[in-house]
């Protein structure tokens, strides 16, 4: 079974962003970029499926600018066999990404597609579900456990009330949650080897997909800052403040 993994280049999760002075967007100049953490988990899961002999090939795909090839190289260093870069400088929203990925699914016919549950820049949490709808495939979102069993996959999902397990017919779409696995680090020799692995570059036009969306970004603002509070010296003072100042007890 071939496994397709979608990875997104995003701001490093440790960076605290700044809003541009003209409120047009967040300022990403000279900001450290990385693979979206949920995508790292997706790559790790695909590679583990290959190590277990369940997957035969792992193909990593990204939609984004030229620089996003760095994240594909990371995926290759982590164990993906080849990569597909769909190159665009336009802001590709989840729907456009899902349409592009649907074309790739059509061409590649994977047995499973693994995506992150959420990109930590837009915080959308949509692409995997949209891809599932467009390809008419079942979805196991927010996965904390994935077990392939014949022509089915069992996905345990992190839901608001606890955990839910669903059985899906393959091919299926899976999106990762934090507890699915702990991603490995790429070793230097693997990083070297990754440079020689194949990478296909295509454009949205090649795939016949329009990237533009009908949603426009009018303004980006910083959230209301909280005023720094005070330190209290004791439990008694804390209780007193909560009762008499904040009036929440």
């Amino acid at each position: 079974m071939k496994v397709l993994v979608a990875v997104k280049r995003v701001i490093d999760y440790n960076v605290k962003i700044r809003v541009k002075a003209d409120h047009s967007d967040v300022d990403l100049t000279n900001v450290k970029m990385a693979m979206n953490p949920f995508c790292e988990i997706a790559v790790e899961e695909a590679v583990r499926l290959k190590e277990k002999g369940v997957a035969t090939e792992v193909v990593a795909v990204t939609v984004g600018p030229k620089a996003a090839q760095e994240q594909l190289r990371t995926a290759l260093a982590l164990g993906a066999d080849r990569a597909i870069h769909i190159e665009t400088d336009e802001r590709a929203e989840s729907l456009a990404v899902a349409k592009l990925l649907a074309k790739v699914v059509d061409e590649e016919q994977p047995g499973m597609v693994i995506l992150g549950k959420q990109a930590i820049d837009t915080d959308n949490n949509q692409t995997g579900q949209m891809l599932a709808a467009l390809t008419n495939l079942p979805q196991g979102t927010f996965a904390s456990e994935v077990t392939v069993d014949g022509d089915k996959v069992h996905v345990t999902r992190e839901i608001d009330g606890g955990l839910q397990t669903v059985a899906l017919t393959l091919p299926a779409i899976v999106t990762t949650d934090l507890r699915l696995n702990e991603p490995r680090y790429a070793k230097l020799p693997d990083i070297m080897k990754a440079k020689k692995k194949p990478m296909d570059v295509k454009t949205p036009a090649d795939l016949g997909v329009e990237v533009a969306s009908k949603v426009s970004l009018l303004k980006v603002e910083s959230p209301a800052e909280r005023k720094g509070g005070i330190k209290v010296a004791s439990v008694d003072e804390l209780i007193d403040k909560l009762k008499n100042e904040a009036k929440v007890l």
Partner: protein
Amino acid sequence: MSILVLADLHEGQLAGATAHVVAAAKAIGGDIDVLVAGEGVQAAAEAAAKLDGVSKVRVADNAVYAHQLAEPMGALLVELADGYTHVLASASTTGKNVLPRLAALKDVSQLSDVLAVDSADTFKRPIYAGNAIATVKSDDALKVITVRTTGFDAVGDGGSATIEAVDTVVDNAQSSFVKQELAESDRPELGGAKVVISGGRGMGNGENFKLLDGIADKLGAAIGASRAAVDAGFVPNDMQVGQTGKIVAPELYIAVGISGAIQHLAGMKDSKVIVAINKDDEAPIFQVADYGLVGDLFEILPELESKL
């Protein structure tokens, strides 16, 4: 304007989130219908009919909608969405699971986690873990929106909507429910609690979370956790508060042994009053805390419990 709200269910009953989503629908304005889909959901439909501002409740009661699996729910919504200008659901794990399928099948974008309504087509939503708030305008014919419940005060009862059965039954051969392990708790639900007390890695182990129990009992609080505490197996996943967990905005949030990473702050920094208990006086959590207490939680918690 004509709005369809997908009701959230919890074990077959109407979940509290729905009243917040109806409030968001009222802010948009227009006729509001609520869709209750599941199996054995008549009581939930009756509860939804009482929500203020709802004109009609549509009930799809069929085994295929049990557990609100994404595939049949998406197909049902596509059937019912015609004629509506907006389809809303809460940004619960159900809303997030189902609504993007509707959006994709209607070839429209989805706006996730909307926390304010500027007009019928312009909304505010958080990006980058809530470190920026984007104002976005949608020119799509159908607006598909998940609602951050903390952004909208719940509507009360007082409505008397009509209840109408939906006969649409879709096929689903692709997915099936296997099992569910739901956390049992007598405490209030995290999303709706007036007081939340959360423990982090500093709690040391799962057993020590009992130190929070007595305080939670006295305050009627829900108990939450940081990702580190969940990852370490101290407590179950449904307790995680943060960017990729639950979003809470109680009157009082008490963070115990939590450092205050941006991903955690994203889930609780809209709380009215924040208390932080941490032995490291430089911990970033103190930058957002109204009241910080520096010290060892193992000494502070028992004292706090006895003095409350």
